[in-house]
């Protein structure tokens, strides 16, 4: 019963994200624009872009992942959906996990698919492009689940986007460090394994911690 509720929330959220007037596509646009405008500030020299590209893509991915967070729980808190969930006996932990996972599928995975394109534009080696997509997918999961903690904390705050960023960005640092290291290893054709494992560990930690912290915060926001 409880799992059923989470599954329904996941599908509902996914449907909303893809049909709701392109809300899921906005972070994609931001990600693409932020990365492809960096040569305007760094200059077009390919050596410099090669050196800075992986890091630029990674920080842009982290920031793009923050964009869907403001509305992640806020809309459901405002229209009483969360109250209904809490009242119906469905575990809020499951709801929080389902909503975050749905947003990651709707927005995080497309970000990971765009990432190799930006990688090639920033002079990254084409051979590493599939790796970049994989690293970005895992990294964005870490960003989404840690971001969801901030999203739940700020759910009751109007214009809470900046608060979410301030709360979530320090929590991003492990995934930022390991993910960027994996990206640089992929760029250099080196051994990206350990860094990718550590990125995945950071993501798993986020997946394990986030639903509980978010549910706790949402319960506080409801009553």
């Amino acid at each position, binding site marked *: 019963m409880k799992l059923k509720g989470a599954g329904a929330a996941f599908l509902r959220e996914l449907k909303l994200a893809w049909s709701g007037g392109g809300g899921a596509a906005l972070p994609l646009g931001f990600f693409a624009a932020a990365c492809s405008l960096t040569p305007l500030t760094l200059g077009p020299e390919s050596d410099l872009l090669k050196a800075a590209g992986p890091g630029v893509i990674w920080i842009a991915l982290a920031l793009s992942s923050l964009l869907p967070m403001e509305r992640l729980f806020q809309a459901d808190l405002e229209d009483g959906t969360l109250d209904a969930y809490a009242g119906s006996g469905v575990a809020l932990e499951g709801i929080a996990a389902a909503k975050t996972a749905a947003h990651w599928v709707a927005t995080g995975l497309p970000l990971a698919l765009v990432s190799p394109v930006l990688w090639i534009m920033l002079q990254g080696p084409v051979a590493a492009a599939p790796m970049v997509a994989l690293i970005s997918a895992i990294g964005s999961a870490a960003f989404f689940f840690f971001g969801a903690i901030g999203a739940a904390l700020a759910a009751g705050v109007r214009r809470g986007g900046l608060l979410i960023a*301030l709360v979530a960005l320090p929590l991003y*640092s492990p995934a930022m460090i390991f993910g960027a290291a994996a990206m640089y290893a992929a760029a250099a054709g080196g051994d990206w394994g350990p860094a990718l494992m550590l990125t995945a560990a950071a993501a798993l930690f986020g997946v394990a911690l986030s639903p509980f912290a978010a549910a706790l*915060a949402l319960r*506080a926001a409801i009553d």
Partner: protein
Amino acid sequence: MAVLSLFANPHRFMAISKPFAWGFTMLGGGMILYGVYMGLFVAPADVRQGDAARIMFVHVPSMWLSMFAFAFMAGASFVSLIWRHALADVAAKSAAPIGAVFTALGLITGSIWGYPIWGTWWEWDARITSVLILFFIYLGYLAVWQAMETPQKAARAAAILCLVGAANLPIIHFSVDWWNTLHQPATFFTEDNNAPYGFKVPMYIVALGYLSLFGGLTLINMRAEIMMTRAEMMMQRKLAAG
């Protein structure tokens, strides 16, 4: 009933905390002054870093305090979340700005120390970087208290954030260490492992002074917080009474 248990403890706290608040503050001030005197006048110059090493006496203890204060806040947050203890919320909230000041002090003095030793105002040293991230966590924590509509909601959100931050701190520390060794040659920032006795004593005295000051100021701010809450309640009661 709930209100009663909420305010029974703060009453007792208010009754006994005043001498401790001012006592710890003054004791801390005195110990810091004595430690600084020892550090500036008595301690010998370091063999490698010369007199620049004297910065250690204000810098290293403030980094300790930045972590201690956060650990204290996490403990108080835990108590607040599990037992809904009103005083624990007040304690965590009151400790936060003091801890943030110690963190800022550690960062600033670290930066100034870096210039004569490393030749740069900001070295991305692992330890300083993780303290910088800790400082941002402090800012987020303070921002959560500011942003919420009601103190009850703010207290719970802040407590959750504090515990999440505390759970992440070891991981952040490890990742920054890993990142630092990846990008940098080992720095010669060996502080106190084999520091001579004359070096350790002033540092410990200042550290204890900081600790005492932190305790005193936290108590003072807790008292201020409780008095303001009580005044707020009275104002509302007055408004309700017409």
